[in-house]
């Protein structure tokens, strides 16, 4: 056995943690090898120094100081931590709220989207219905259509055009009369005013003529003065229609 190997095992030998065989082997070697003996003595003295050295222990103050500092630190930091926590909560609530809003919003938007064509289609249906009534072969039904047309706004040009069409071409005087009355409600439209003037020049039914004279005077359509004067000059105009013109003409002049 080499000295080197023996010296490796010295710590175990001194601790008495080696096997019986290894122990006796080392003892045997030590009897013959002075070098190893010297080495062992050195190790022994070194370990003795280590043993003799007292363990340094921290003072009791250290712990209390540390605790104090910790408490202090906690005290200064704690409010911040709470605030942070609160802020975080608020944000998460906000997130939840936002997501709810988005979901509901999306739902409502979807519903609205599906409603829009519905509303439009209902309106279209109504318009179709009224337009169909205006073309009905029954005069009474056409009048119903004309009075239903009152509910439309001036934006429904189709309806207005259909009414003007009735005013010009309907064979039944009562339908033309009703059309004139309904059209007077759309008198802000220039095409309506034009149609009313034109109709006064062409319509031969005295009831319709009288109604037109009255409407044109009411909406202050000065361009109608000329056609009214024409009516006055026309020999075929019935006396009572002329009377109506004379009654209403001063309102326009």
């Amino acid at each position, binding site marked *: 056995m080499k000295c080197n190997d023996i010296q490796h095992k010295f710590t175990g030998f001194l601790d008495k943690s080696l096997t019986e065989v290894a122990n006796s082997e080392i003892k045997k070697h030590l009897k013959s090898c002075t070098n190893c003996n010297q080495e062992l003595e050195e190790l022994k003295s070194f370990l003795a120094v280590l043993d003799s050295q007292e363990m340094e222990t921290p003072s009791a103050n250290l712990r209390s100081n540390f605790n104090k500092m910790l408490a202090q630190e906690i005290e200064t930091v704690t409010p911040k931590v709470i605030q942070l926590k609160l802020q975080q909560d608020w944000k998460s609530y906000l997130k939840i709220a936002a997501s709810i809003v988005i979901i509901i919003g999306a739902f409502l938007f979807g519903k609205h989207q599906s409603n829009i064509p519905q509303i439009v289609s209902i309106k279209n249906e109504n318009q179709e219905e009224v337009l169909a009534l205006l073309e009905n072969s029954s005069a009474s*039904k056409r009048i119903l259509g004309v009075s239903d047309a009152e509910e439309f706004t001036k934006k429904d040009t189709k309806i207005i055009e259909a009414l003007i069409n009735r005013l010009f071409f309907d064979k039944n005087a009562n339908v033309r009369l009703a059309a004139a009355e309904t059209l007077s409600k759309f008198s802000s439209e220039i095409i309506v005013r034009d149609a009313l003037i034109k109709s006064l020049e062409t319509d031969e039914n005295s009831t319709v003529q009288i109604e037109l004279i009255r409407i044109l005077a009411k909406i202050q359509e000065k361009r109608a003065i000329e056609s009214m004067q024409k009516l006055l000059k026309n020999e075929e105009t019935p006396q009572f229609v002329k009377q109506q013109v004379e009654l209403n003409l001063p309102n326009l002049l």
Partner: protein
Amino acid sequence: MKKISILLLFITSILSAQKKEFKYSLSGIEKVVLASGTKIVLTAGNTSELVLTDNKKVRKNHSAHENHQKEKADKRKGLTAVYPNGRDNSNGFGFSITKEDAILYVTDLKSMYQRSGINLTLPKSINISVNAGSLGSVSLEGFTGEVEVATNTGKIEMKNVTGPITANTSVGEINVDFDKVSQTSPITISSSVSEIDVAIPANTKADLELRTQGTVYTNFDFDTPKKKGLPNVSGNKSINSKLNNGGVKIYIKSSMGNIYLRKK
């Protein structure tokens, strides 16, 4: 169709021996549009055919008249009457009858000078549209369908009707007597100068609109809205009222004549 016309010819040939009459089957017809410039009297019948008769008073058959007629008939032998407005297809009656889908157009080809009134019998529930031209008048009774009437100077008289009614005249008087008032579509009666006299059952549900520069007389209790500080209804302002909580629209307009609305 051929059979019917042959039958009709047969019937008319028999009847024309006594009284001039023309019949036309109205199967599949929903509306009759009549245009004539004479005094038109329409009667509701229970058969589904149109019966036309001249209103000419049947003169007593004295010999001179008979001879005169014979002479006329001889002159016409082999010739047919032609008219500017169409072909006579009413067996010499002077009417043009054309069918378009469910509408029958009955147009008088003779001028008003050649007529002294016509009588027509039509099915009770058929829709009628009558135009009496500028001098003709219309009188009808007992129809339950829709009735449209237009005259210029002639009188319009309707009895035992239910509506819907559309009547217009310039100068003629209008008298309408309703049995009951149909709620299907509006009733409009208008005139320029004449009086309008309408009688409706007391329990009629209606939205009334009366317009005139004359006066409205009625024995209905009107709940016209009273507005303080505003002048009474006059001139061209209209009187709107609901009868028995409202219903079909009844629009009566006379530009200058009075309106009479009676409770039956």
